[in-house]
């Protein structure tokens, strides 16, 4: 239940990739036979990705991960448009791939507005509109948040971007493959996808670059991807990404409905069984990714809960500082002004297509005694004193 972190490849994906490891191993940039068959497989994959997000295949460049895509989109826009302006608008709940890239650009003379969110993790669009200045060259807002699952009103933001003629980028890594993503309807100029979040292997992603968008290169070198990204293409990964996109397109509605049902059952079950649990993210389930549930179990530190789950074979992730490897708890929790202790207590359940009703029942069975045991051990929990 940690599918927002990564997931296994979907059935069918690996099978499609296998021939390209040995028999069809050519370099798609080569003219000869070994290259040609491979090139056409890459172009098929490009069409599959394009179909999922409603763009033209020529508007896609394959990259190695979501982080690369976000670096490319943001640094590439900053460099291409630096004569036009030096201001970027983004949010305080972006993934580090966006946040740290923006912070880096601040050291290079750019100015960045990090929009606040409310206690449910939502943006104020009026604040966004007011943040736009003459100098604004980029608006970058994630489509859906990886920690709390909130879905942002990308279409509305796209209309604002259009109104003020500002380039609009969305880190769509958590949305693509889980909910419907239409870059045309959203008026997006740039969007980033990462394969391993929806059934493709790790190490492959794509960036959508609307035709005509000014974007400087990030990866310099060879002529691959029509001069937009150097480096021999990760052919097997790209083939896998294509198939994962096709599967996602075909099953999106049913998968989302099935997963939302499981997630809702988990959510209700937890709140019914355990007192003093706080939901992190928007209370309306439709405003969150269908698979995501983030809750804080008061009085318990997240990692200790995670490890207990782990011993029961349940994988989740935690917003506690200890888990993230940094000293501070999740920046998303901080942005939502979640009490610092409750932030340390947060656990994210993110379901996948592999999860079943039985998995949810199992979690709901194992969770209460673990929480009880850990609360009993906690010096913050005094209720058990008679």
């Amino acid at each position, binding site marked *: 239940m940690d599918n927002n972190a990564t997931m296994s490849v979907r059935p069918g994906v690996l099978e499609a990739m296998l021939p390209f490891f040995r028999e069809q191993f050519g370099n798609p940039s080569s003219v000869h036979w070994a290259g040609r068959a491979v090139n056409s497989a890459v172009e098929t994959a490009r069409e599959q990705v394009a179909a999922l997000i409603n763009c033209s295949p020529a508007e896609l460049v394959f990259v190695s991960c979501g982080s690369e895509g976000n670096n490319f989109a943001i640094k590439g826009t900053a460099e291409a448009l630096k004569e036009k302006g030096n201001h970027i608008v983004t949010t305080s709940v972006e993934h580090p791939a966006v946040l740290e890239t923006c912070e880096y650009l601040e050291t290079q003379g750019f100015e960045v507005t990090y929009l606040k969110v409310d206690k449910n993790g939502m943006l104020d669009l009026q604040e966004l509109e007011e943040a736009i200045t003459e100098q604004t060259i980029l608006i970058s807002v994630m489509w859906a948040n990886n920690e709390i699952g909130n879905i942002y009103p990308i279409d509305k933001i796209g209309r604002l971007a259009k109104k003020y003629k500002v380039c609009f980028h969305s880190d769509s890594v958590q949305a693509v493959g889980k909910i419907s993503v239409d870059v045309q309807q959203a008026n997006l100029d740039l969007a980033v996808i990462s394969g391993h979040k929806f059934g493709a292997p790790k190490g492959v992603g794509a960036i959508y670059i609307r035709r005509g968008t000014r974007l400087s290169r990030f990866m310099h070198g060879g002529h691959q991807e029509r001069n937009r990204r150097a480096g021999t293409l990760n052919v097997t990964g790209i083939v896998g990404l294509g198939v994962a996109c096709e599967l996602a397109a075909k099953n999106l509605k049913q998968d989302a409905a099935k997963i939302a049902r499981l997630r809702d059952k988990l959510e209700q079950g937890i709140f019914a069984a355990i007192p003093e649990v706080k939901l992190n993210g928007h209370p309306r389930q439709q405003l969150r990714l269908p698979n995501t549930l983030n809750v804080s179990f008061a*009085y*318990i*530190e*997240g*990692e*200790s809960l995670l*490890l*207990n789950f782990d*011993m029961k074979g349940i994988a989740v992730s935690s917003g*506690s*500082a*200890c*888990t993230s*490897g940094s*000293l501070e*708890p999740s920046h998303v929790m901080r942005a939502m002004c979640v009490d*610092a*202790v409750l*932030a*340390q207590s947060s656990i994210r359940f993110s379901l996948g297509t592999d999860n079943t009703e039985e998995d949810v029942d199992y979690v709901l069975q194992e969770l209460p005694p673990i929480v009880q045991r850990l609360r*009993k*051990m*906690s*010096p*913050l929990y005094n209720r058990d004193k008679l």
Partner: protein
Amino acid sequence: MYTDKVMDHFSNPRNVGEIEDASGIGEVGDASCGDVMKIFIRVEGEIIKDAKFKTFGCGAAIATSSMVTEMSIGKSLDEALALTNEAVAEALDGLPPEKMGCSNLAADALHGAIKSYRESIV
């Protein structure tokens, strides 16, 4: 990530709980940073006869709390004061580097408990 010993002390922590009328209580950490350890000792004739803990914290925090109570029971107060956080980590066959700082404070909590005891008997 964690050694088998850490996982053992984490999943079967020894001496969880509080001591009513404890001789001394020590507390370290800050919940908003993710770790609070509270250690209770019962002292008889300069010897720690019993020790218990309550901890809010990660795997390392719980395991070191458990270990420090185990290590301290039966020791004289001076011996217990000589126990360092590093010695506790070592007894657990080591901790991940990033846990050596904030989550490895159980010996400090024990020392706090001893101090509070000593102060109380003056």
